[in-house]
């Protein structure tokens, strides 16, 4: 009943674990069977291993949090060798979330991923926490367009481009990416944000700004998904502050085919199961046979 299809691939349900909040699934699999999820987006990968940022990485804000992890990850090769084997044995759709600071880095990463069992590449052109870590690509349409075009040329996997809410114009950005070959879009990544330690008289984070996520951003993220769904014709994965089934349904009604749960995982490790169950109950109650019936209904 909750099945959805993205670019020919079937997901058991529309609930995907969001990149960076779920590792490579192993830790969460100790708490619930992650095969119950529709999919998992991996921690953001870069071509080479990265240590990530120093200093405070997590800071709580009203109904949300800021993070500045800085893409700590084992590198694409490390992922393929150490983490993918665990995931590929599972009945779950895998999105390899890929960041990069240069075009070449993206392209080499894609080539390595081409020959693996991952299902989608989720191209992160929007990580705000690394200097040139993709952020620059996610703001202006023309730079985004260039990366996506080249990525599409080399990618053998369907390409989902993850948009930044910091983009100057989210509709134009979405349109540009699709125009350049994006097979799907996911949005939003975190909002560029600031917090200051008033006693130290310094920003909380070493990088000055960091990425804001969680329920606090949901109303804005939902608006962006709605706007984007009006201008593109590819599947959209809605992300931003989703913590319950109502949130998920709102994103679907705004036009999303699937949704990702990020910060919500920190409230309760199996929050996604609650969301899936809630969606099922809502569908029964409302006599909805397939989520297609309500997708983009507003």
């Amino acid at each position, binding site marked *: 009943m909750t099945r959805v299809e993205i670019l020919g691939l079937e997901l058991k349900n529309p609930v995907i674990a969001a990149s960076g909040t779920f590792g490579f699934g192993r830790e969460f699999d100790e708490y619930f069977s992650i095969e119950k999820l529709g999919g998992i987006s991996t921690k953001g990968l870069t071509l080479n291993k990265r240590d990530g940022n120093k200093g405070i990485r997590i800071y709580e804000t009203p109904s949300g949090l800021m993070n500045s992890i800085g893409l700590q990850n084992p590198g694409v090769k490390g992922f393929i060798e150490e983490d993918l084997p665990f995931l590929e044995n599972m009945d779950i759709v895998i999105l390899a979330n890929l960041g990069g600071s240069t075009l070449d880095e993206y392209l080499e990463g894609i080539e390595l991923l081409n020959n693996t069992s991952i299902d989608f590449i989720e191209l992160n052109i929007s990580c705000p926490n690394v200097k040139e870590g993709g952020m620059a690509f996610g703001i202006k349409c023309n730079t985004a367009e260039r990366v996506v075009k080249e990525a599409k040329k080399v990618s053998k996997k369907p390409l989902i481009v993850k948009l930044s809410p910091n983009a100057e114009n989210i509709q134009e950005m979405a349109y540009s990416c699709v125009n350049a070959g994006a097979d799907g879009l996911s949005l939003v990544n975190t909002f560029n944000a600031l917090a200051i330690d008033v006693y130290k008289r310094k920003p909380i984070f070493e990088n000055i700004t960091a990425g804001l996520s969680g329920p606090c951003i949901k109303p804005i993220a939902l608006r962006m998904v709605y706007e984007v769904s009006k201008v593109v014709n590819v599947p959209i994965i809605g992300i931003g502050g989703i913590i319950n089934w109502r949130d998920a349904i709102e994103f679907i009604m705004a036009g999303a085919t699937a949704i990702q749960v990020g910060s919500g995982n920190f409230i309760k490790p*199996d929050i996604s199961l609650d969301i899936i169950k809630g969606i099922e109950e809502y569908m029964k109650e409302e006599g909805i046979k397939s989520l297609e019936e309500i997708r983009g209904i507003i």
Partner: protein
Amino acid sequence: MKENYRKGIIYKNTEISPNIYELVLEGDFHGIPGQFYMLRGWDWLDPFLSRPISIADIESGKIKFLYEVKGRGTHIISKLKKGDTLSLLGPLGNGFDMQMEGRIALITGGIGIAPMLYLAKKLSGEIHIYSGFRNNAYFLDQIRPYVKTVKIATENGSIGHKGFITEIFDPKDFELVYACGPTPMMEVVLKMCKGIVPVFVSMENHMACGIGACLGCTIETIRGMERVCKEGPVFKGEEVVFND
């Protein structure tokens, strides 16, 4: 499969010293000394993150936490009463190495005393505790039965040595040291013990997931960035890189 985020029913939650609370929950809880739980005493979204709190003791059918009210999360928890419920995730982290024996010093600063009762109860060596506080000593009465000596220091001298606890501690008397407290204190302990006696420190950091997935709680070690919630919270002292 591990137990999930579960509810605990509060058996008691009492202020044992100004701003210091002892929280006891009923239920069948697990964990070794030095491990912690993520506590959540509210159903809403602000505060957003759960709070990491060490296991202070586990007895049959009960778990004890000792916590200091610092900000909003601990404030809300402190208002909970007998019969109220609380969500917990745990036990998390590595915990102290329990294989050790010999003459062991536990050095604590402030609320860093929290994991020491359970540790003292479970360790088999000869244990001496050195506890520093700002004004009031607490929790030591419960620890006393399980240790050989108790040394206290307070900054205002109201009880025990006036000054820092590290001033009355001699590393040469010990074969092993466990330290838990503010970073500056732990740095002093490490400096004093360097080349004399091995030290294990329990580290703190802001946490989101608590289970090793978000990489939010990492600290710098000689092996690179490591997660306080997974590789820690207990680290070999010489492996931690302190930068200030």
